[in-house]
């Protein structure tokens, strides 16, 4: 772990300890959390520019810095939204949890060792469990318990694979493993098996099909800021980011992972998630539940690209991770605003919300179009990268399925738009009003990022993706 990384862990941890004693205060915990996360974001951007030249362990420094920026960006938006949307009870504990989970995620992405990564994964798991069940609603507690059981199984599998690594390679640091892989090019089978077991653990943590059972319940029943945090960044950090690290190691064993059995298996899991998520989202009657299945589908895109592990695919995975963090968080914020304004997120229970909540509707539409990969929004570029990488590597069938699923994404979001936002306002939303600035500012910021990242993609490519691709090449 580079020394600068400690800042991203220690400061939010210290602030969390202070927040925990501010349960009786309303504004203080929210203000403290927002200031700390904003400082972290600024420092993250500085650290990224400093790390661009480094290439220790195959671009991991660049990847870590980029992920740290995404973590702090989403966490800041969530903390800002929660400052207005969260219940007035136990706000100190709530914001303390947000800060600790941010510290945990920063630890995961800045770890240079699988055991360190495991320790911080546990931090994130504990906080996720507590945040999902924070207000003790029966459904959220059920979702949290289901999450924890699956997560514990994944942790046990991960720990087992780490112990195998320790025995086989004599260490668990990425550098040690890279050296071991380069030294044993002739017989990659043992490392393939160990990294395969590890990949399984991360797929469970990511909530990919068929390990997805906790995601719809958890996302639907948790408060909207927590759902935005879970879908926007948590599953990406504990699942797909860690999977990317494993795939990077696998690609050293056998570059162009097409010939690697583990990489190919992970690709199939990714493809199954893309289709399963997209098809199930069509059937959903609840806004948040639809977003949960949509997340499973989008995680599939990131996984398939990470497992392909060519520089183009990795850049696509990284950019889609960033895009998914912004558009999915925005959509959960919109769901939170709708819930607060109407008391429901049932799609069929209302119509014509656009007339009553024009800004929420506008920003949600931008996020939906970006999720579906419609140009010129940012989602278009990342999906283009992923599909082009699959096509280039000879996986043309998979590329076609990924493209087809993108059309499905557009279909279920159009269904949602038509059912909930468009049309004549239904009688039950007569008195509904647009939410205040506190709810809208994070939505507008993310909508701006989605449009700007799409329109100025060359700038994003040159400054963020290109250094990563260069190191990979």
């Amino acid at each position: 772990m580079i020394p600068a990384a400690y800042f991203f862990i220690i400061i939010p941890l210290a602030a969390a300890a202070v927040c925990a004693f501010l349960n009786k205060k309303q504004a203080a915990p929210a203000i403290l959390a927002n200031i700390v996360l904003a400082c972290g974001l600024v420092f993250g951007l500085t650290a990224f520019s400093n790390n661009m030249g480094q290439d220790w362990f195959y671009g991991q420094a660049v990847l870590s810095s980029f992920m740290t920026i995404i973590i702090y960006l989403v966490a800041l938006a969530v903390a800002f939204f929660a400052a207005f949307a969260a219940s007035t009870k136990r706000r100190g504990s709530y914001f303390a949890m947000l800060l600790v989970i941010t510290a945990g995620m920063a630890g995961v992405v800045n770890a240079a060792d699988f055991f360190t990564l495991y320790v911080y994964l546990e931090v994130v798991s504990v906080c996720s469990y507590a945040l999902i069940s924070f207000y003790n609603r029966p459904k959220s507690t059920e979702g949290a318990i289901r999450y924890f059981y699956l997560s514990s199984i994944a942790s046990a599998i991960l720990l087992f694979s780490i112990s195998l690594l320790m025995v086989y390679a004599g260490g668990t640091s990425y550098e040690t493993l890279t050296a071991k892989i380069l030294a044993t090019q002739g017989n990659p089978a043992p490392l393939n098996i160990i990294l395969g077991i590890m990949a399984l653990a991360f797929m469970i943590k990511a909530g990919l099909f068929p390990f997805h059972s906790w995601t719809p319940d958890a996302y639907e029943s948790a408060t909207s800021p927590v759902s935005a945090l879970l879908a926007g960044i948590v599953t990406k950090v504990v699942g797909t980011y860690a999977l990317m690290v494993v795939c990077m190691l696998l690609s050293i064993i056998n570059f162009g992972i097409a010939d690697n059995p583990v990489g190919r298996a992970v690709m199939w899991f990714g493809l199954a998630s893309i289709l399963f998520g997209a098809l199930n989202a069509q059937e959903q009657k609840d806004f948040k539940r639809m977003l949960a299945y949509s997340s499973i589908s989008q995680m599939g895109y990131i996984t398939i690209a990470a497992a392909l592990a060519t520089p183009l695919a990795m850049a696509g995975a990284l950019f889609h991770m960033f895009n998914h963090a912004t558009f999915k968080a925005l959509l959960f914020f919109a769901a939170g605003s709708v819930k607060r304004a109407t008391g429901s997120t049932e799609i069929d229970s209302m119509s014509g919300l656009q007339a009553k909540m024009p800004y929420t509707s506008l920003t949600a539409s931008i996020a939906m179009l970006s999720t579906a990969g419609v140009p010129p929004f940012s989602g278009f570029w990342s999906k283009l990268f992923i599909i082009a990488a699959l096509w280039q590597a000879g996986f043309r069938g998979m590329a076609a399925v990924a493209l087809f699923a993108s059309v499905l994404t557009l279909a279920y979001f159009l269904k949602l738009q038509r059912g909930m936002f468009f049309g004549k306002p239904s009688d039950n939303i007569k008195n509904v009003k647009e939410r205040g600035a506190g709810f809208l500012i994070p939505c507008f910021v993310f909508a701006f990022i989605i449009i700007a990242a799409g329109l100025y993609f060359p700038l994003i490519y040159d400054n963020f993706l290109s250094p990563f691709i260069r190191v990979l090449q």
Partner: protein
Amino acid sequence: MSLHLFLVAGMIICSLAAVMAKRTIHAAILLALLSILLSAVMFTANAPWAGVFELSVCAGLITVLFAAAASMIGRGESYAKREARIFLWLPLALLVFGLIVWGVAGPVFAPLFNAVKPAAGAGALMSAGDIIWKLRLPDLLGQLCIFVAGVLTVRTILGEGKDE
């Protein structure tokens, strides 16, 4: 050898007490103590790496206990009492198991145990302190995070969770 026996006896007592504890927080503390004793066994057996890893993993185990306790919430006190009665038989079961191992498995495996001894100086290249403070500092910070997260979780779920 006597130190080992003392530590192992402590581990057995802690594990039994953790399972039979009536309050979750006592069980969690006993489980932590068990892990610390196990780490001490590893340190004294010249395996500081394993000791440090065990210390780290124990934090994870405690969180699983928190989760299990939280999952019991809502099932009522009668359920908890019924569950607790089952564990009253545990010391007896452990005693029977120990006697079988002592009487049957002990003589069979004795030659093997005698043959495997820690190599002189194995694992002693770095002290436990060096491993913790120089090599595993990020893990230590992670454990601190887990501790804070655990305290907040218990406070949220078990302590203040009934206000809504």
